[in-house]
């Protein structure tokens, strides 16, 4: 399977930034500092379970 990481990153950015472009940038920088660079993931990127688990946790925590 492929593309789930990009989908999750997009969902996380959207969840946290709520359409605010400045916040979108901040969320992306936070992801890069965690070692998840959004520009490295496309709809064809393989579904790495470790990255998926990390993103799931991030979405869960920001409630």
């Amino acid at each position: 399977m492929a593309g789930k990481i990009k989908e999750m990153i997009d969902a996380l950015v959207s969840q946290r930034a709520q359409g605010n472009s400045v916040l979108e940038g901040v969320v992306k920088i936070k992801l890069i500092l965690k070692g998840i660079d959004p520009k490295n993931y496309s709809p064809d990127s393989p579904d790495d379970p470790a990255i998926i688990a990390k993103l799931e946790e991030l979405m869960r925590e920001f409630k």
Partner: protein
Amino acid sequence: MNIRTAYSVKTDIQEAVQDIQTQLSDFEPRLIIFFASSSIAPDEIADRMEAAFPRAETFGCSTAGEIVTGKMLTDSLVAMAFNRQAIKNSKVEVLDDLNRESHRAFNAFERHFDKPMSKMDPKQYLGIILIDGLCGKEERIMDRIGDFTNVNFIGGSAGDDLKFQSTHVYANGKSYTNAAVLAILEPNTEFTFIKTQSFSPLQKKLLVTKADETKREILEFDQKPAALAYAEALGTSIEDAPKHFMHNPVGIVYEGEPFVRSPQRIKGNSIKFYCGVKEGIELTLLESTDIIASTKEALDRVRAELGDISGIINFNCILRTLELREKGLTESYGALFSDFPTVGFSTYGEQFIGHINQTATMLVFR
């Protein structure tokens, strides 16, 4: 004025605190942030500042040099006081053991402000972090804060005048090591942030292919020993590479904006940094520019944006301060802040969004 600054170069702690108290005698602060030279006894300064201002929350840290309106200082005590017109609401908390994860501070913020951290509006609230500058845990703490909230935390790692023995953070009468002080403020005025690092990105990229993040070491760039790859990128030898560390650090560059990672020393074939980096991250080689010019440009931009500036807290990297000292530019740097009530200190690391190096992060109030 709703934000006031004071400083003292008196060597006796009691006299220095009294000096600050006298300068603020016609002012009723609700919150005071202070920065004290490492020559000032930590427990005593925390205790005396709290006792001197019993109606205010007091917090601060030890430094590697202080900054106050128009001046860079050493062996001094500097303070910024906010009254109730400046700050509507605030809460200071301590993470008193950085070896374990604790939600206690976040829970306290949520109770105090009566809303979840995730729902706090970053335009309404701001966070300040002061952290033990020798703990080596700034990345993790900033990472976890960022997981829970969109509120921007800005701050610095406490210093000890380059002795590298013990750095301290202070909150409400107590001094702590291996700790961080977190404050959330709800100002009554507009605020913004400056992150200025006086570096421009070069074309050369280095991909981190092997790293030990907890030790802040990069073992390999582009599958080559890190020291060799860095030297090759600069067209120099491994032996001469450390001479370039100050002027050619590396950075994570996002939309042209570098988040600097400064090399500290070569360790075998690896490079030890002042900041951790994850594997898989692309770093860009940077080149130093003029600290005075770029800081002035950043201040001018913010003054144009806000119209007026009522206070600045400046967290300025000690490596920048050392460069300013080496070039005889500390007076020129201080003078950039002559028109604004300012306090700050020379830090062992800077925080904004994450943990960064060779940067000045500033909190600016309109």
